């Protein structure tokens, strides 16, 4: 007769009996662009070179630029940057031994941006040749090192510093006036120059009163007389008063969880600020703003990541029978519903050592079972 071996591979750090760990944040502070977005300003990508000798003030080096007076500029915009791939990776070592695997981390892999776009290739927009000329004389890594300089590329709301280590330009008969090109830039520095207007809930879009909100809020002081459509939406969502702050982009309750920071002297995460002071005005101390949806109700079970004993035994029975019989899950479940006693584990008492193997702790076990039920 077959034998079932139940072997547990335990987590090194147990989740403990704390469902709040998995439910934390699951239904709180969920904000989505329900009322639109604020578009970013359009920008044009550019390439620059700056030289820095002995760590002094960086001085620019001009690049050939047919769009600039005199034919030279400090920032060349003569290319269409269409795609940038920014891939980050850790340096790590994975050791799969006889049982659980171990992993060691050693910092970051160098970041190499993969950039691609188009260069115009006409008599009045000689971008392709300009780019290749600049690359040969200034932009490529060897020339940068000779000149003690680095390349700076700005795009979107980011400025990256580094060395261009490769480039390619393609000529295609179907694109006589455009040359697709790519280049790879080894990043030595990365600067986020974005200017977000929403950095916390208090600055998010509101409709209604403005009591207690900082004056710098972009969405503050919106008209308190709503359009008919907004009024209808208010009534549909059950808002009680126009004076109450309406966080219209939130799909769940707002709740201030304070700030937890890692203390550098001890390495332990500590609560750095009191939570009550951070709750936006207009939200009561329990974080209820009259916007509770049914899925955040306490009556619904918290979605969890693991199986309880009974569920695990059922799952094992289901999968084992499927694999041994080659049948589908639906048929097995129907059989299980009709006659659970035919299944080796589901029919057993949870309090037995079978159930113990699945509860907290390490408790491997072996069980003799009858052949799997025919499905």
């Amino acid at each position, binding site marked *: *007769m*077959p*034998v*079932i*071996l*139940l*072997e*547990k*591979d*335990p*987590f*090194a750090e*147990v*989740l403990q*009996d704390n469902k709040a760990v998995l439910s934390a944040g699951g239904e709180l502070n969920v904000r989505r662009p329900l009322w639109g977005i604020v578009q970013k300003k359009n920008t044009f990508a550019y390439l620059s070179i700056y030289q820095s000798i002995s760590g002094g003030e960086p001085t620019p080096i001009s690049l050939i630029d047919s769009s600039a007076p005199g034919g030279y500029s400090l920032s060349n915009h003569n290319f269409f940057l269409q795609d940038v791939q920014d891939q980050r990776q850790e340096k790590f070592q994975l050791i799969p031994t006889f*049982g*659980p695997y171990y992993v060691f981390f050693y910092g970051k892999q160098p970041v190499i941006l993969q950039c691609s776009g188009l260069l115009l290739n006409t008599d009045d927009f000689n971008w392709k040749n300009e780019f290749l000329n600049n690359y040969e004389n200034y932009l490529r890594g060897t020339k940068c090192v000779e000149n003690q300089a680095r390349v700076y590329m700005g795009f979107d709301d980011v400025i990256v510093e580094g060395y261009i280590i490769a480039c390619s330009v393609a000529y295609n008969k179907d694109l006589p006036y455009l040359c697709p090109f790519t280049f790879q830039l080894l990043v030595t520095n990365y600067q986020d120059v974005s200017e977000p207007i929403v950095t916390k809930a208090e600055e998010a879009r509101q409709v209604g009163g403005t009591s207690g909100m900082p004056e710098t809020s972009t969405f503050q002081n919106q008209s308190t007389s709503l359009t008919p459509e907004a009024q209808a939406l208010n009534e549909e969502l059950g808002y009680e008063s126009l004076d109450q702050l309406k966080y219209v982009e939130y799909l769940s309750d707002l709740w201030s969880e304070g700030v937890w920071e890692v203390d550098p002297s001890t390495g332990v995460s500590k609560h750095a600020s009191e939570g009550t002071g951070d709750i936006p005005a207009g939200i009561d101390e329990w974080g209820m703003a009259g916007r509770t949806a049914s899925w955040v109700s306490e009556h619904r079970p918290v979605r969890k*990541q*693991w*199986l*309880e*004993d009974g569920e*695990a035994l059922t*799952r*094992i029975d289901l*999968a*084992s*029978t*499927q*694999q*041994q019989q080659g049948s589908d899950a639906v048929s097995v479940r129907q059989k299980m519903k009709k006659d659970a006693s035919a299944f080796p*584990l589901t029919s057993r008492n949870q309090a037995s*050592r079978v159930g*113990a*193997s*699945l*509860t*907290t*702790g*390490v*408790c*491997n*076990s*072996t*069980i*003799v*079972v009858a052949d*799997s039920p025919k499905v």
Partner: protein
Amino acid sequence: MGQSTELSSTRVVTRDGVVTATVLDRVSPDRVYLMLVKGSAAAQYVRTTDDTALVPRDVKDLLIFPKPE
């Protein structure tokens, strides 16, 4: 003789670990030893006691040996 066939293998995530349920048509002593060693090593790994039960009689009766008598 001495060989066992794995009929099925299932992994389920429980509250504090991953349980692998392996169904074998027959078991060898080595496979049972492996189960016991795994339990002991896992318990040391997470700094808890090993509650692995003794191998029951009915399982021992089904143990196969490398060479026939």
